[in-house]
């Protein structure tokens, strides 16, 4: 078959040249920094997509795994702890740590039906929050752990100012994650995930070891989320506080997956762009414009644009699923290669 650039390649290609375009635009129009957030959330949502989109298990606690990754990464690398294993080993270690956490939660609970599992994951999210806050001897509680080292490769360092370096690093890692997920998706494992999502009992009757397959989805998602957590920690050079990884983050990731197109990598990318873009590009810039035009900043609730953000975000969600119930880019099912 002749090779044609697919939608994923197109999106990533546009992303790759975006900073170059920006060179010709005035500063207020720069968005590449916010796009870094899109990349991070895209990685997180790709992880969630594995468990919720492919295997059909509703996970409301993906942020907990992100938190585990973030804190594991920070504890292993930060200079106030004795380990200090460095950026790359730390980032790689978030994968097994996340997978282990996923395994520990999944092993006893993956037999639960649909929404029972959802509440377990939600509860796990709350537990992780509490644990991170309360074990302050280990995790520094709400202080957060900082500074977390920035990556360096062959002598080049990434500092907070090198925004384009960061941009391309995140883009590269996003591509790695996409490739890994695509390899899994187009394999025996991916097929088994889909079959469980479609009809768990039938796939069980075909000899699929449902528990094991679900566990792989769950752990893989947890590992990717932990990876995203470690990465975001490094970008911000601090873990922030535990509530930076609360239920709302899980919900945002879920919205990205579903609004984008559940079970579709392109969908997740588009979803992340739309959701995070709405949040940290459109809303932020719009508020700024309104402020400079003298609108807003009033003490009355109704007149301050900030107070409309919830409403706009909520309306966007309702309208998105109303107009596109299968997501902005639903997965193409038929010709998926084996």
């Amino acid at each position, binding site marked *: 078959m002749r090779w044609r650039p697919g939608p994923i390649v197109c999106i990533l290609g546009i992303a790759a040249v975006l900073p170059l375009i920006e060179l010709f635009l005035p500063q207020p129009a720069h968005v590449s920094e916010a796009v870094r957030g899109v990349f991070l959330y895209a990685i997180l949502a790709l992880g969630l997509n594995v468990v919720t989109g492919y295997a059909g298990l509703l996970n409301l606690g993906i942020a907990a795994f992100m938190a585990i990754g973030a804190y594991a990464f920070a504890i292993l690398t930060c200079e106030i702890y004795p380990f200090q294993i460095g950026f790359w080993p730390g980032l790689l270690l978030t994968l097994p740590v996340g997978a282990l956490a996923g395994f520990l939660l999944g092993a006893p609970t993956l037999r639960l039906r649909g929404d029972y599992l959802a509440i377990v994951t939600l*509860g796990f999210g709350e537990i992780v929050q509490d644990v991170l806050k309360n074990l302050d001897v280990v995790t520094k509680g709400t202080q957060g752990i900082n500074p977390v080292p920035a990556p360096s490769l062959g002598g080049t360092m990434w500092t907070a100012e090198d925004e384009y370096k960061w941009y391309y690093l995140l883009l590269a890692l996003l591509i790695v994650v996409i490739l890994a997920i695509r390899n899994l998706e187009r394999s025996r494992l991916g097929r088994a995930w889909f079959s469980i999502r479609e009809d768990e009992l039938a796939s069980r009757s075909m000899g699929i070891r449902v528990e094991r397959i679900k566990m792989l989805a769950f752990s893989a998602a947890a590992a990717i989320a932990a990876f995203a957590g470690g990465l975001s920690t490094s970008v911000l050079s601090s873990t922030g506080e535990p509530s930076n990884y609360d239920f709302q983050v899980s919900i945002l990731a879920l919205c990205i997956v579903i609004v984008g197109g559940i079970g579709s990598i392109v969908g997740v990318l588009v979803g992340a762009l739309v959701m995070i873009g709405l949040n940290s590009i459109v809303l932020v810039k719009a508020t700024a414009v309104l402020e400079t035009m003298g609108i807003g900043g009033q003490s009355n609730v109704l007149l301050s644009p900030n107070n409309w953000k919830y409403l706009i975000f909520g309306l966007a969600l309702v309208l998105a699923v109303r107009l596109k119930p299968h997501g902005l880019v639903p997965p193409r099912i038929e010709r998926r290669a084996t």
Partner: protein
Amino acid sequence: MQDYEVFLQQLITGLSNGMIIALVALGYTMVYGIIELINFAHGDVFMLGAFLALTLLGALGMEAWPSHWQLAGVAIMLLASAGFCGCLNWSLDRVAYRPLRRASKLSLLVSAIGCSFICTNLGLFWGGMPMEVFAGGVAAAAPKDFPQLIPQFNILGESAIRIVPADVAVLVVTVPLMIALVYLVKRTRLGRAMRAVAQDATAAALMGIPVDRVIGITFFIGGALGGFASVVYALYNNTIGFQMGYRAGMDAFTAAVLGGIGSLPGAVLGGLTIGCVRAMSDQYVETRWTNTIVFGILILILIFRPSGLLGSTRREKV
């Protein structure tokens, strides 16, 4: 206080809190039972109900009423909030959920999340707008005092154990509601229709049951329960805020699951269990671990009873 008095006191607190959770959870579980939607907006509808009650209270100047009139005031608030929340929940179904009935469950879930955000924002506006006390909306986000209409003296007089009229009020409102609800679902034609739709919407439609109407009515009833609960909550806690829907919704969801989703007695049992576990954990462990303990117990129970405490192990039709 003696040790046993502390224990009894915590039990009373736990049961009172648990009853409120149970009331919210009933609305949750009804909606879940009929269309299998985790209604994220339920907690926020509940929150708006509390704001309506506060508005009524302020507009009618109930604080200044003589005490027996205030009881009538409470009744007015209960009915108004119930009606309001019912209608709101019904409209959410009409506008945001019904068009998605054929779409996947997850799209529905996102729609519910969106509604939850919208309601939260309305609560923020509401918290600021109509009442002078909030400085023209400057402090809209701050928690709001809900005046004490129910006195807080100790019914037991000088005893170390305190039972305040608010505890009694919780019982007086919630228990009849639960009985009425069980009657409605088990004994009336409407209840039968609801159960039929919950079991198999297509079959129910073929039997001539107006499915959409039944679902709408279920949303109304679920919302109304949330409305009742919101007034009870406000009277009991005397504070409301635009973000209180989150915890209320989460507790209700947990209670519904713990009891077995779709089971009315299960929701009540789940709510009471959570209330008591919270109180006991606050007393005998540490407050900061309470959430962990609640969810830890939930996970443990689900491992051993995968369908909740009273949930039926519904067999899949093969």
